[in-house]
């Protein structure tokens, strides 16, 4: 009820101005999936599930005046029992034809498909590659400045985003909180004829609150508080970077995206993810293939510190250092093959088959079949 009220309050607010034009758009992804027996992947298991990656969203936007627009996006995710939340709510001010400034709750422009990540209709995949896109820091409360223009056939967009991220996430099955302060994200996007190129770099003061890790961190603190501070992610400098390249000849396309995360003074391993995808467009059909790799397996950090402690401490210290870092360690590769069918100019039907290989523990290998209906209005 509260949510409905909030939505109508926004609608009222938007309609308050006499000549405001209110636009209501929406999108929905209904995704069903089932794994082969005893496997589990992305929340799916051997019993068919329709909620894990499904979502319904409504966007209301209105022009406050000829330069200002208010936008609110209400999203209900199946993984969250379809509880609706305002994931985005922001005002945009078009300062000039080239420059716009947005403020409020925004999508972090980290990835090539960040902005339309939830709009399944906008891309060929059933769901954007998890190895790259599944991050707990997708939305930011802050300000974004956008500059775009073109020169001949070269189109470019530069974005600078600043703000704060607060979110909860799951690490190795344990719930945790994430807080990133003084976030700064810079992106540059270029389109030249059939080519699209993008670079992004971001930083933030990163804190993880993972209750399951607290007892071991405290043990470490009994040996040396400096080590506890070193391993805990507490207001530590976190870096994110990414590049992507696409060639789209309309009849076919190939694209790749690579991202990395580094929080040097913390237990969190150096992370590197990428995917390569290709597809063909033949009438209403778009068959595609995607290979993904996720690598958070760079070997335990800080083991060189152990030698500086008296011999009796070295064994337990090594155990603690490795034990604290272990939950975040993972390495896996994923291959999926699928097809998109344009049923109508606002409905796409899709299906894919995914083969997931855990490069550390092959007991986690899994196969998954998904199908989806994407709708926009």
């Amino acid at each position: 009820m509260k949510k409905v009220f909030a939505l109508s309050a926004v609608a009222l607010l938007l309609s308050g101005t006499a000549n405001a034009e209110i636009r209501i758009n929406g999108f929905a992804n209904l995704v069903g999936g089932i794994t082969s027996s005893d496997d589990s992947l992305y929340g799916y298991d051997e019993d068919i599930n329709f909620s894990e990656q499904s979502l319904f969203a409504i966007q209301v936007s209105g022009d406050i005046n000829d330069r200002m627009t208010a936008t609110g996006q209400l999203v209900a995710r199946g993984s969250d029992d379809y509880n609706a939340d305002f994931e985005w709510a922001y005002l945009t001010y078009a300062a000039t034809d080239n420059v716009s400034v947005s403020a409020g709750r925004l999508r972090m422009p980290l990835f090539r498909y960040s902005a339309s990540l939830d709009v399944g209709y906008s891309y060929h995949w059933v769901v954007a590659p998890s190895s790259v896109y599944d991050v707990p820091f997708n939305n930011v409360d802050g300000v974004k400045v956008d500059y775009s223009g073109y020169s001949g056939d070269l189109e470019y967009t530069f974005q600078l985003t600043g703000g704060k991220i607060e979110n909860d996430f799951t690490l190795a099955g344990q719930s945790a909180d994430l807080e990133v302060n003084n976030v700064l994200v810079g992106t540059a996007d270029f389109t030249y004829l059939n080519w699209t190129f993008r670079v992004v770099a971001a930083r933030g003061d990163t804190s993880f609150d993972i209750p399951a890790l607290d007892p071991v961190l405290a043990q470490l603190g009994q040996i040396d508080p400096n080590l506890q501070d070193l391993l805990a992610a507490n207001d530590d400098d976190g870096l994110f970077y990414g590049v992507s390249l696409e060639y789209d000849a309309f009849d076919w396309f190939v694209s790749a995206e690579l991202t990395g995360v580094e929080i040097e003074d913390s237990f969190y391993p150096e992370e590197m993810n990428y995917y390569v995808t290709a597809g063909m467009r033949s009438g209403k059909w778009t068959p595609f293939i995607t290979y993904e790799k996720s690598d958070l397996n760079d070997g335990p950090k800080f083991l060189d510190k152990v030698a500086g402690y008296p011999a009796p401490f070295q064994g337990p210290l090594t155990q603690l250092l490795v034990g604290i870092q272990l939950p975040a360690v993972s390495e896996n590769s994923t291959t999926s093959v699928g097809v998109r069918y344009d049923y109508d100019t606002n409905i796409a039907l899709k299906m894919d088959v995914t083969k997931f290989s855990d490069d550390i523990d092959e007991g986690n290998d899994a196969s998954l079949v998904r199908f989806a209906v994407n709708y926009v209005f």
Partner: protein
Amino acid sequence: MISKKVVFATFVVLFASFSLSAATTIIVHPGNSATLDEKTVQRIFLGKEKKFSDGSETIPVNQSADSTVRADFDENVLGRSSSQVSAYWSKLVFTGKGVPPKEVANDAEVIDLISKNPSAIGYVDSSSVTDAVKAVSLN
């Protein structure tokens, strides 16, 4: 042999698309003297260009998604299928970056709108063009 067939098929496709695009005409208000080429029309209908070459505002007018003239325009002027164009707009709409052109039901409505508004630009089947609007050649 295979390559000859491919070349032949390509010619057929090229020929087909040229003859199709000849059936669609870009139209503006008779008083609009802005210079327009295919690239500019593309940019206007993809929301990338908001002004004519003379600096006045553009209001693109689209036709309904299931019309043949729309399919022809999307395919030959924008260079993508209507579904791809719609996927393109879904990216902009849901990121607050753009609003797709208004859609009207038929050629007569496009002509009516454009004849009344110097900012409007649209496209119709070549056989529908009247004196109330100005046909633009994209060369």
